[in-house]
């Protein structure tokens, strides 16, 4: 009895893995030349109080490509993402060693205002978090806080980013209405529009589709595919199919350590570490 169950389970997993392979075959082409590193994480350790959540992480994320960070819950993938724009500075009692560099510039450089770094990096959160303002004001928020007052420039930026976020047609007639009246998927796309409104170099996405239905998810994934032409995208996801579909590179984290980092195709088709394979085929996590 037990054996058959196990067998069934294995068969199911096998089936899932096959599905994944199919996805992989169709979803992306492997990057031919290794591109120039853009975000470099160097010997990075991170601590919440005395608990170490990232252990000696080192890898380079390439420019204008999508890097997916996968791993089981609590493996430190969100922590790493939130450190790229120094969001974890807000949490009391955190510390780090090592460095993260963007275009060879350390984000911890004391000559840099943290707000300046964040202006170069857009971020989309797991739970969509539109401000209690109008749709228009949401989109141009980053420009407003940067001191932009020119109305026509703001209008232009709002239209461009809403179009880029594939939301323009749905909201162009109600830009002055509250953003909180949008649907969940629309809200998340609004947050993406907001994150790219001031043309950042990097777009960080922290499980952007985890609260969305499949249709909204598909829309956002399409969007990511479009956006990578302009932005370097780092996406944290629980959904391996999603990682396989949207990313060019994949980093697998486990217990705060980077286990493997390679092109998505290699990670999913022929991972070199056993743990990665186990995770991808669903044996744990």
């Amino acid at each position, binding site marked *: 009895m037990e054996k058959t169950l196990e067998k069934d389970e294995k068969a199911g997993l096998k089936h899932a893995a096959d599905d994944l392979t199919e996805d992989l075959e169709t979803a992306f082409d492997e990057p031919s030349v290794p591109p120039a590193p853009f975000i470099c994480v160097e010997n990075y350790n991170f601590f919440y109080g005395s608990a170490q959540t990232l252990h000696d992480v080192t890898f380079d994320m390439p420019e204008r490509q999508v890097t997916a960070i996968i791993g089981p819950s609590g493996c430190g993938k969100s922590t790493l993402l939130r450190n790229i724009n120094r969001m974890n500075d807000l949490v*009391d009692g955190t510390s780090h060693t090592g460095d993260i560099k963007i275009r060879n510039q350390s984000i911890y450089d004391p000559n840099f205002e943290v*707000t300046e770094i*964040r202006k170069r990096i*857009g*971020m989309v959160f797991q739970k969509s978090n539109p401000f*209690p303002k109008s749709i228009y004001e949401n989109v141009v928020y980053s420009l*407003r806080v940067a001191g932009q007052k020119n109305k026509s420039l703001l209008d232009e930026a709002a239209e461009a980013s809403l179009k880029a976020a594939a939301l323009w047609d749905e909201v162009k007639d109600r830009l002055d209405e509250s953003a909180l009246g949008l649907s969940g998927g629309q809200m998340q796309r609004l947050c993406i529009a907001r994150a790219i409104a001031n043309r950042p170099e990097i777009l960080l996405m922290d499980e952007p589709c985890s609260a969305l239905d499949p249709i909204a998810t598909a829309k956002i994934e399409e969007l990511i595919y479009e956006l990578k032409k302009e932005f370097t995208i780092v996406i944290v996801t629980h959904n391996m199919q999603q990682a396989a579909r949207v990313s060019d590179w994949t980093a697998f984290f486990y217990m705060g350590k980077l286990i493997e980092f390679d092109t998505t195709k290699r990670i999913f088709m022929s991972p070199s570490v056993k743990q990665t394979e186990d995770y991808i085929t669903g044996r744990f996590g």
Partner: protein
Amino acid sequence: MARVVESPAETEPVPPRELQLFLGNKDAYGLSFKYLDETAVVSRQYPKTIFRMERLEYGDAVGFPVRLEYGDGPAIPAEAADFETKLRSEVLEVAARWKRIKHLEKKKIGRINLEMEKIRIREKIMKKRDTDISRLAARRDRLQKDYEALASESAGLRRLQQANQIAYRLASGQERRIPTGNIVDFYYPNRLGFTDRLGIFFHKIRIFLMEEPREANTEGGVFPAIFGTFVMTVMMSIAVTPFGVLAAIYLREYARQGFMVRSVRIAVNNLAGVPSIVFGVFGLGFFVYFVGGTIDQLFFHDSLPTPTFGTGGILWAALTLALLTVPVVIVATEEALAAVPRGMREGSLACGASKWQTIKNIVLPAAAPGILTGLILAMARGASEVAPLMLVGVVKLAPNLPLDGIFPFVHLERKFMHLGFHIYDLGFQSPDSEAAKPMVFATTLLLIGLVVLLNLGAIMIRQRIRKKYFVGAF
């Protein structure tokens, strides 16, 4: 009002009902109400000719009119057909004259007094410096002349008020006469139809709301008290809002959460439980004597020893109440700030906003309804507080409103009247508490109404903010 007694053996004998009779004519009887055993009533009459006069002094008079006596002409007997119209026109004329007298004495003479006071102070300064004061003296003489002219004009008017008299007979048969200048209004109660009664009812409400009190506050209206309460509450809100909100922002957003902040929070919560009279004592010691006294020393040195700010006034009262209500605002604001989702702040910071930009643009608007709730509670508490006010500036009768047409228009140092204190004063300090009773009830209702009105206003603002920002998500 018959009472059915089913088994007389078990219930106590019903005490006879007492009637409270309004006598009026306090000048004649010494009291205006009398209690009477109902069983002693033999018959009731409703004479059509009985009339009631509202007077400037001694409350209302009730009696039968006899005649209207003119100082320079023949008297008109009450039986004459034109008696009522003549009396009506006389009363209107008297009212117009009172208005003129008030204008002369309060506005014009008041202004001259103000000028004189300024000259006195200037003179004091100039004498110290040994400068020539002849010009000042000339100006004072001119003012004195103006004053005398105005004073004699008003004295003449006052004489006219006494010229004509009305004679009336009391129910006891005694005949009395008073100058028509004392009459505010009159009517024949038993001749009134329903609409007339309604008219008098609304007329009295209008007087109650719009006019100044007379006769130790038991007659007339309560307008200065309404105005004082309103202005003080608004001033208190203006003072308490930035103070409380900034304190809460600091405690919640900037201060390092540790022992110090926790102690401050506990202290703030305890502050809400301190008896209000203690705040009054603190306000008197700190605001009135220390701050006010210092201001007087620095800026109003010349008018000392008469205090300007060094005595109770509407500003000190508002600040004392602001202290009293600040814990409410702090606690409510902290709660509201804590309730703003973390994701919203992070979203703003991720857009490159600084901490202050985030608080200003995102956190405060999102917390505004909660902050306003705190303000509403603070206003409700502040507007109905009396005890501390008695120490820091409320008075039984304020000669002037805190806002008026004389420069600088807002007089923060002035004493003021307050509905809460008015209730206390009427109900427990007035010489004739029976006569003041209706005023006490009406004033209480009005105070509650005013608090409700202020709250409704704030609630409407909150609703509007909510609508603006929170159209139900999803």
